[in-house]
């Protein structure tokens, strides 16, 4: 049982290290795929904007961790 828990924990840790970082990405993806197409942005800009949001999340998260260290 302990081994199964370890495997599940390992599987979870493949995708989540810093919970806020992962939640930020998921929230942005949800907004980007569901709401961005409804906003008055050019049709070719929706997908690149999803990338830009992810880039901002990465820079912000590493900056925040660096300041807290």
């Amino acid at each position, binding site marked *: 049982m302990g081994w199964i828990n370890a495997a599940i924990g390992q599987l979870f840790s493949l*995708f989540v*290290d810093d919970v806020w970082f992962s939640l930020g990405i998921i929230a942005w993806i949800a907004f980007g795929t569901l709401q961005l197409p409804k906003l008055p942005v050019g049709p070719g800009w929706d997908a690149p904007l999803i990338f830009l949001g992810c880039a901002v999340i990465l820079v912000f998260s590493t900056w925040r961790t660096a300041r807290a260290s």
Partner: protein
Amino acid sequence: MDMISLGITTSSATVAIAAFLASVVEFVEALTIVLAVGTVRGWRPALIGAGAGAALLVVLVAIFGPLLSAVPITWLQLIVGILLLLFGMRWLRKAVLRSAGIIALHDEVAIYAKETKSLQIDGPPTGRWDPIALITSFKAVVLEGLEVIFIVIAVGSTGDALVPAAIGASAALLLVIVVGIAVHRPLARVPENTLKLTVGVLLSAFGVFWIGEGAGLPWPGEDLAIIGLIGGFLITALLAIQIARRSTVLEEV
């Protein structure tokens, strides 16, 4: 060569490279543990445990692999894209923090020493089978191998590039086994953080690309957008390293 063929060729090559580099990182980590087990408790249980782990992974792929074809392609792209992005950006974040000196670098020699010490504390092997050695070796191969399987399936399945992904991972396995047998000690010289940063960039780029495709959001340049995304994530990671370094220096001042 037209733009579509160029995009597909570029995408397959990038998939193979991503799978190869990511697999090298994981196989090196598994090798460190198997080496520690073999050195301290004997090669027979270490290799049987590793072999059993590899066999379990093959069974898992055989069971779950075909299920993927039952998932509609847009859902597959979206789900795999999100998982790839989470996985890739997690590696990217860690690599950025390590490059900036915020967290310690991964040290295979230290891990090997720690594992060796722990295996010695457990006492000498008793009887024909050494369960401690078998389980330690088995666990290392299964846990690290799961990551390899995820990467191969994730980068390969959505773009119809499972073959290049599997070739990349197999080449990594072969390379690590050959070098491991040759040097017979942990592969400490592998630039683990640079590999993680590179793989993080590649997987994040694939992740965002598949999310866009799955959600029906068009990419400028279609498949060739992956190249732009790789460049974009690389620039972002390098920028994040500089910003993180500067903010720690400022805090110290």
